């Protein structure tokens, strides 16, 4: 498919990030292959969101490197990560509540009018609305009737679905989802899970942070367990139980043994 067939899609090694005295991320290592769903699990404060923020460029790590298709990624730059094809759904969704759904989906990737008007920075609202609506249809999102509604008027679940849709429309290589189903009902959760499957089939890498362990076991190809800012275990979901993963998250069993088992 491409010359980098042998190298993993994403390789993050030795990422560290401290906030003052707090060492939020002590040792972030991660490999994601094309068409693979990797779940990151861990208790609150384990450093999951810090870890993915460093990969997505929202935070500049104090140390470490990230490679995409073997090429080093400029760290601490959201734009570099976006250009490289990394799209992220943040826990707080990164939306502008006063703007419409369509405007949020195309925020910073606005469709411009043709010709000189576009060069002058004029946006094509109509095209953005049409494309946003088409995106919703494509993902099977039916609970959102109007892409002109302002994001602030939506329910938490609807906003979350919009954030996922935005990331899907932007992801060229890797999609990172931080708690994408936290505010969702069963139907909407299923839409997100279906979307994850679709992304995997398209050959994208998927990084999923979730507290919903039964779903993680269902959807992930590999589960990375974090504790106190470190990746402490990596397990295959097959044959795993929720109870076992929780014990890894809490460090109740020897992490080394579990790593060996995987």
């Amino acid at each position: 498919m491409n010359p980098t067939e042998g190298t993993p899609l994403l390789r993050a090694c030795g990422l560290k990030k401290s906030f003052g005295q707090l060492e939020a991320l002590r040792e972030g290592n991660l490999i994601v292959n094309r068409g693979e769903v990797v779940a990151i699990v861990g208790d609150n404060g384990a450093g999951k969101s810090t870890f993915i923020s460093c990969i997505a460029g929202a935070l500049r790590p104090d140390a470490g490197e990230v490679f995409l298709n073997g090429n080093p990624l400029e760290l601490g730059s959201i734009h570099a990560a976006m250009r490289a094809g990394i799209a992220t759904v943040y826990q707080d969704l990164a939306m502008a509540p006063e703007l419409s759904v369509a405007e949020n989906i195309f925020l910073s990737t606005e469709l411009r009018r043709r010709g000189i008007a576009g060069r002058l920075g004029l946006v094509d609202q109509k095209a953005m609305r049409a494309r946003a609506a088409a995106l919703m249809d494509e993902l099977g999102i039916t609970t959102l009737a109007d892409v002109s509604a302002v994001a602030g008027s939506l329910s938490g679940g609807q906003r979350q679905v919009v954030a996922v849709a935005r990331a899907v429309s932007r992801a060229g290589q890797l999609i990172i989802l931080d708690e994408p189903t936290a505010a969702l009902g069963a139907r909407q959760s299923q839409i997100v899970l279906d979307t994850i499957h679709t992304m995997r089939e398209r050959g994208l890498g998927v990084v999923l942070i979730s507290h919903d362990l039964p779903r993680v076991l269902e959807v992930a190809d590999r589960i990375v367990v974090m504790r106190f800012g470190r990746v402490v275990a990596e397990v295959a979901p097959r044959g795993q139980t929720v109870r076992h993963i929780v014990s890894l998250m809490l460090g109740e069993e020897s992490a080394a043994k579990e790593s060996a088992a995987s």
Partner: protein
Amino acid sequence: MTVGQIQTSSTPEQGPPRPPSAPPRPGPREVLHRLRILQSTTSYVACAVVALTLIFAVLTSGNFLNTSNLQSIGRNSAGLMLLAVGLAFVLGAGHIDLSVGSTLVLSSVVSAKVIVAFAASAGAGWAIVIGAICGVLAGAAMGLLNGVLVTRLRINSFVVTLGTMGVGIGLAQVITNGSNVIGLPTVIQRGFGIANWFSIPRPLLLSLALCLVAAGVLTQTVFGRHALATGSSEAGARRAGVKVDHTTIGVFLLAGTMAGVAGFLDITRFGTTAISGHETTMLQALSAVIIGGTSLFGGRASVLGAMIATFISTVLLAGFVMIDVSSFYQRIAIGVVLIIAVWVDRLRQARAATT
């Protein structure tokens, strides 16, 4: 959430799924609703302006409506409108610019000095053109300074512009040694400042044209959308890929440039500078932009509303002059209008939160 919860909550749903046939907010109606709110803010303001005008017309037995008075109100509004529209961008982006009034004064002084300096050698016409450009550039420079300080030093825009407000007026006084610039060619007034075009003051026409362009920039361009996104949620906009710092510098640059144009208009009107005549100008502009439907909290801005709301204070002040109210009361009125404007904005905010 604790780990215990993780084990037990296999489906973290927060209520039954909504049937697709009955979405919570019907689309077209929602849009209509929003349009109506927007329209109503602007039209309420327009009604208020008309009502004020009529009240003063009655109090002055019609004198208020004579052409020269209305033209004078238009001239007073021309510069103020530019400041208010510049502020609409700044407030929309979640910041504030307290320095626009002193930027106006600085620009007028720069402009006037340049015109006087070139009038003999280059002729009045060219001197005025060069002076206008220099005045606008001075305003742009002040705006750029604000934007850079806010984004690079990460200082709150209230504090930054409170500082540059002093810097601007101080520079104006340093340049002129405190006395107004005199000796401007009279053609600057006759040919533009006090001239009309079909009875409409020429400075007002220039302002209207610039403000309408600004309205297009706010609603139709990438820059305008990014400005509002930044004001709506700076962190969100940043992570969605918006170049928040560029956008922030842009809105301050725009406000400064508008103030620069207003500074030039000021000298075309009076034929001299008015260094100490603009102490309340910023407050007037700020009230206008908030009354006009721009949120003090960012994310929402209306250029058209700001333009119309400009007339509230200019009509009020012209009326006070005509019915012989002391200028001390005029200041009180401007202060009261500002407070009412912010209160109305709070009510709007509260209503938005409940719907």
